[in-house]
Each structure stands twice: as structure tokens, then as C-alpha cells.
């Protein structure tokens, strides 16, 4: 099953093109940020696929975004300029960081796409006003999508959309449960490959395979030493070679906080009350991206205790904080997060990511970090 996830991830474009063939009335929508309410797209029989990079130097993006913009956003744009997403019927973004918004803006001008939409996702998400405001945004989005696909969305459609997303969330969370075991039946790379795939394909199809996986996991045995239990935290991360490298030198990622990982699916939508309001509430209440992680009265953040709880529940021995170069929201939080976790007795190591990862240089750092965590073996 993991192999299937990997194939879907590797052949994301092939998959989407195939999907269009089989869903002639459906549209494929590329989205730039996980604040985009996929529920509404599923309700309109669209396929939401997350636009991610190709981990190649984003040479094509240079004329459109100079290089102070984060590697991920430039890589995404570069993929579009290279024509790799030529099958998209539309693109969407929900207001998040300025980097990916810039990639979206350049895309609108430089990569011909029939439909594009900007959801003005509010920032003061901890306030009731934000939920009310987002409700209005979603109502407008709903109308815009209806007009685009030429079909009204019924409550039943919305329920279907919500159910598809919630099921996916519930199932993936169950898979993550297995990572709490002393010797997890799946590696961090495998677990995240599952999540990556879920962002690139029809969740209904994905859910079926996750269910199979859940049946399989109780019996699954990995022929490897789990080693040090690590958590990986950061913004977008689909860096397979890096994660494989780390898990090949005496460690296992047992949990993460990435928008390509747990942060994406952790929270479900309550299925009571007005549907759009329920969706709005979920996106305001979800584990926040640092751009939206502030609350009134105090400087404290909402995401930090969540990360600490995960670290404890999954018995994490060390945390790797991934800092995408130029990613302001996370760069603003990382010094505080590092102090917060270390203050709670969890060692951290900060790594700065570029588009292409110099595995050699990272290896020595990670090896040394792992040695630091298991220093006792060397000393007593």
C-alpha cells in the first residue's frame, strides 16, 4: 500500500490527467495552501490537488520572483512555468503567507489557467469575528464555484464533501496512532508519503487504500531498528531523500508538525449546524500556520502546546526544526519554539532547507544530533 502512495506521489501529474479522463464533468483545481477548503471543491465534483515543488533548482521562477522568496514558493511557480500543471482547470489559494501568495500572483499572470480564486482567509482565527467573516468568504466561494462549474451545490453535496475530507482525516490519524508503538510498523517517510499522496489525489480512492493499510499495520513488521524517536516540525516538507537519509542512520520520525503532515489533517469538521459555518469553524480552529498563530491578550502561541503534546504522546527524544530559507512565519517562531521545547526537556536541532537538499552536509549534522541524543552509549 505504501508503494501505491509512493507511486501516486511520484506520478501526481499522470494521476490527475487520468482522473480527468474518467471524470469528464469534473474539474481539477490546483491549490497553494492547506487553508483552502477542499470540502467545497469535492462538493462540486472537483479534484483538489496541492501544488508542490519538484525539488529542482527553480530556474524558471527567477524572472518572476527574485530569490528572497522561499524556495518552496519559487519551486511551485517553476513547476507551473515548466508546464507540468498544464492540466489544471483552475487554481486556488487561501490567504496565508506572502511567499506562496506571490507564487500564486505570478502564476495568475504567467501560467494560463482558466479559473483562479483567492479565498480571503482571515488571520485573527482565534476570534469569533473571524469565523463569521470566513463564513461569508465561503458563501462567496460556493457561489463562485457554482457559477464556474454551472451547477448548484446542495446540502447533500456539501455533506459529501465534508464526509470525504473527514474520513480521510480520521483514517490518517488512525495510521499515525501506530507510530506511538515502541517499534512503529511504518517509518516517518512512509507515513508522510501517505499524507503527500492524499493531497495529490482523489481522497475517496486514497481512503480505500488507507483502510487497507490500517488492516495491515497490526501485522506489519519492519526489518529495522527504530533507533532514536524524532519529531520533524516545519512548514511544507515533502523532502523524501532527506527523511530517508535520517531514517537510515539510526532514527525514526514518529510524528511531525508540517502542513504536508499532521497539521493538514489533524482536525475534523463538526457535522452539526450550518455546513458552511462548520467548515469555517474548522479552518479557524485547526492547528494554525504561524502566519495566523497569535491570540489576543498574550504573546503566547496556540501551536506550541499542541506540538509539545504530540512530542509527549509519541515519546519523542529529539525534534528537528526545519526552516525553509526565507520562510518568515516559521523563522519568526523557530527561536521561541526551540526555547519552548528545550525548556520542556526536548532537544532540538534547526536545519535550513533549500530547494535541493545537500544530503551530505545534512547527514553530518543529523548524525551528530543523534549521537548527542544517545551520548550515553558512548560515555557510560
Amino acid at each position, binding site marked *: 500500500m505504501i508503494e501505491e502512495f509512493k507511486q501516486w506521489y511520484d506520478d501526481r501529474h499522470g494521476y490527475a490527467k487520468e482522473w480527468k479522463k474518467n471524470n469528464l464533468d469534473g474539474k481539477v483545481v490546483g491549490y497553494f495552501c492547506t487553508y483552502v477548503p477542499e470540502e467545497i471543491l469535492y462538493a462540486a465534483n472537483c479534484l483538489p490537488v496541492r501544488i508542490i515543488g519538484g525539488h529542482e533548482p527553480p530556474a524558471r521562477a527567477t*524572472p*518572476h*520572483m*527574485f530569490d*528572497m*522568496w522561499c524556495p518552496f514558493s519559487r519551486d511551485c511557480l517553476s513547476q507551473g512555468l515548466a508546464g507540468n500543471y498544464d492540466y489544471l482547470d483552475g487554481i486556488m489559494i487561501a*490567504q496565508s*503567507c*506572502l*511567499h506562496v*501568495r*506571490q507564487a*500564486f*500572483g*505570478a502564476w*495568475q*499572470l504567467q501560467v494560463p489557467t482558466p479559473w483562479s480564486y*483567492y479565498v*480571503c482567509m*482571515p*488571520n*485573527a482565527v482565534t*476570534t469569533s*469575528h*473571524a469565523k*463569521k*467573516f470566513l463564513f*461569508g468568504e465561503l458563501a462567496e466561494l460556493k457561489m463562485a464555484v457554482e457559477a464556474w462549474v454551472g451547477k448548484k451545490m446542495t446540502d447533500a453535496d456539501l455533506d459529501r464533501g465534508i464526509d470525504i475530507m473527514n474520513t480521510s482525516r480520521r483514517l490518517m490519524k488512525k495510521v499515525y496512532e501506530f507510530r506511538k508503538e515502541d517499534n512503529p510498523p511504518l517509518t516517518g517517510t512512509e507515513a508522510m508519503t501517505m499524507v503527500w499522496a492524499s493531497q495529490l489525489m482523489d481522497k475517496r480512492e486514497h481512503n480505500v487504500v488507507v483502510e487497507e493499510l490500517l488492516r495491515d499495520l497490526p501485522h506489519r513488521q519492519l526489518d529495522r531498528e527504530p533507533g532514536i524517536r524524532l519529531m520533524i516540525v516545519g512548514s511544507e516538507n515533502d523532502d523524501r531523500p532527506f527523511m530517508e537519509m535520517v531514517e537510515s542512520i539510526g532514527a525514526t520520525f514518529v510524528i511531525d508538525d508540517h502542513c504536508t503532515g499532521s497539521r493538514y489533517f489533524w482536525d475534523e469538521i463538526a457535522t452539526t449546524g450550518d455546513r458552511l459555518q462548520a467548515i469555517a469553524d474548522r479552518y479557524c480552529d485547526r492547528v494554525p500556520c*504561524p*502566519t495566523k498563530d*497569535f491570540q*489576543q*491578550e*498574550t*504573546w*503566547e*502561541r496556540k501551536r506550541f502546546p499542541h506540538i509539545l503534546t504530540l512530542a509527549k504522546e509519541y515519546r519523542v527524544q529529539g525534534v528537528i526544526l526545519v*526552516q525553509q*530559507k*526565507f520562510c*518568515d*512565519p516559521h*523563522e*519568526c*517562531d*523557530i*527561536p*521561541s519554539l*526551540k526555547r519552548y521545547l528545550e525548556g520542556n526537556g526536548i532537544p532540538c536541532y534547526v536545519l*535550513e532547507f533549500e530547494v535541493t537538499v545537500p544530503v551530505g552536509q545534512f547527514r553530518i549534522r543529523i548524525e551528530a544530533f543523534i549521537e548527542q541524543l544517545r551520548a550515553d552509549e558512548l560515555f557510560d
Partner: protein
Amino acid sequence: MVTYKTKGLDCWKRAKELRDRYYKDYKESPSRGGLRWEGGAWSFDAIPQALEGEVHGLSEEPYGASIAHDPELQVRYQEAAEGKWGCARDLCSYMRAYWGSVALNEYAFGGPWPHADFIFQNQICCCHSKWLQVADEIDGGTTPYFCFDVGVGPYDKIGDRQIEYVVAQLYDGIAFIERVTGRRIVEEKLIQNVYNTYRSNCYWAKTCELNQAIPAPLDEKTMFSLYVLGTLEKSSQAIADFYEKELYPEIKDRVANKIAAVANEQCRVLGDSQPPWGFLRIYRYLEQYGIVSVANLYTFSLIGWMKVDNNGLLVPYPTLEEQGITIKDRDHALRLLVEGELKGKLMWAPFYGATYKNDLVTKIAKQWRCDAAIIHLNRGCEGTAQHQMQLKIALQEMGIPAMTFEGNMADEREFDEGRVMRLIELFVTETLGLKKIA
């Protein structure tokens, strides 16, 4: 070749006084039983400044910029932020300077770091909400913090829903301020502050509009020192009066008498984003070729409120007097304040897409009669550096020669002067084909 009359600004001294007093008042406020709050150039200072008794704010961006004018200080503060606090070197350079100032417990205008009684901030770019969140954390994490969200969409999509969302937050903000300070927000003061905010922002916009004249009465280098007052305290009576009663009339008079900012003006250029503050001599170099920087979306609308009229022209946003509006009460005041900021601050539009930046700046290029554009790819501010490369393409497509150079508004370590001067020289002598005016 024509040479115009030129002379310095009469109100220059006054502008400097107002600025100096602002930073001094902030420092001394407690000694007079006054309160202190931290916010940003875009915070709605009309609200905290309506507190009963004496109160003074510290505006984060201009404070960072003041530090940048002294490279030695700037590097010391930023290295403290990067070293002692451990933040990334590529973050907003004002913010790093500010954090370093807190980390070293130093106030750039003398003395130890002046702790604020509360924080009243707004969120529009990724760094705003974080800026004082972290600053306070470095400072011990005891300052009550309030941050309201103004990221509700571009000027042409502002309706009741958007206004309602921000107003609702402001009510919370007022309750917050009154609770943490134990003082009331005085309605009369609030109403007056909103009138003043309109006057400051609208009259700065009117002043900028006057720069469409040939010769330009103001060059950007001078404008930098003038808009700053609005980024400090646009709601203040003295500052609103300065814009309406001193600056605007004087510039009007300069236009009438063809008094130029630069005597040998013959090539009008447009800038984008903040300049590298430590290297304003670039403008002097340009003047040797008769090049004057006359327009910049940033310089205009960082505080100046403008709107696109029915003919698609960029015009100053009308004052309340011009709209014939009298503020009835607190609620009316808050709504008008929010409406003005959301509809008038065009600077925010590019946050919602490259098309906005291109549309507004190409309008500026036409209306301010610019012959070329020199775009500072500002590694120090992601907000104002939005879509700069798209802008370059858009300007070139409309036949305006454009060059870009990489720099940083407030981190001299990221500015290679020799290299940049080479590029500018190439652009000026080869692309624009200009010769130095002896």
C-alpha cells in the same frame, strides 16, 4: 537645457521637531504619569491615542528605519537579534533591528529599552503579528498584547462584511485597552483622532499628487522624511495640521512658482519599495544626470489614502469635510476609520495579487509622467517587495525602461554598493543614454 529654481522646504525644520518630540515623548511619558504602547506604522493609533490622560506610542517600522540610518548601530542590533535571540538573518530587517534593540536593552534614542504598557498591533504581512509578539517575548513576555487583522481584501472588494469584521475587532481592542490600562477611551478624543487621521492621510496624498507637476516640487529622498510623521502618529492634531496647513500649502506654492526639487530635472523615475536607507547617496548620484525620483507606490500610500476614480485615475481619497461627513459617535468614528484604511490604503492592494501592483504602479508611471523605473529588490521587506519582478515586466511592456537592483532597506550587510552603482551607471548611461550634467 532648462534649469529650474530650487530651494529647501520651509516646513523642514518643523517636520524634524515633530519627529524628535515623538521619540522623546515616548521615552519620557511615564515620568509624567503617561502611558506607552507599541504598535506599527499601520496600527490604528487613533484608538490608543484616545485614552484619557497622556499616552504615547512607538511605531515599529519607523523605529527600525531610524536605526538603519546608522549602519554601525544597525549591524550591532541585528547581530544581537541573530546571535543572542537566534533568529534567521533573512527576516524583515526593521524587525531584526527592533528585536536587537530590545535584546540589548537599548533605546536607539538613548537610555534603556522603554517597556510599553500594552501592545496594539495589526496583522497584514506575515511579520506584523509576530514582530511585537517576539519583541515582548524577548522583553520578558509580560506586556499585554492585542493584534487585529486587517487582511480582508483589496480596496475594490471592501463591503460591509469586511468593515464589520475589523470594527468588531476594534471594539474588542477598546475593551482590551481599557481593561489593561484601567483608563477610558474618551469618545471626543477618538472622534477628533479620526478626523485627524483622515486629514493626515488625505493631505499627504494630495501632496503626492502635486508631484505630477514638471518640475517636481519634491524628490523622493525628501518625501521619505515627510511621510514618516504619518507613520508615527497620523491621528495627532499637530501632525494632521502639519500635513494640511504647512506642507500642502507650501508644495502647492512651489508648483505655482515652478520651484523644483532638483534644478536640472530632465528624467523622472519611479521607485518601488523602501530604499536602502544607509545609501541614500544613490539619489544624489542620479541627480548628477538630471534624474529625479518623483513617485513610488510605497512613498505615496504607506500612509497616503488614494482611490481610483471613475476615469481609472489615481486621486487622493476625500477628507471627511469633502465628503460632508460629521462624525456622530464612537461607532460612526470606528466605521469611518476602518473604511478609510481599507478603501484608501492602496499600498495594501498588492498583498492580494500582482495584478493590483501592476495596475496601480503603471497608473502612477503615466500620471506622474515617469520616464524610467529603478526598482529596489528589497530583501528586507517582503510586504513592499511583493511582485516586483512582475512589475518590472509590466513597466517594460508599457515602454518604460526598468532596472532592478538587489539590496536591503535596513541591512547594509546585504547591500553591495560598488556592484549596485555599476548597474545603475550602466542603466543610466547605456539604457537611458544620459550624460552627466557638468
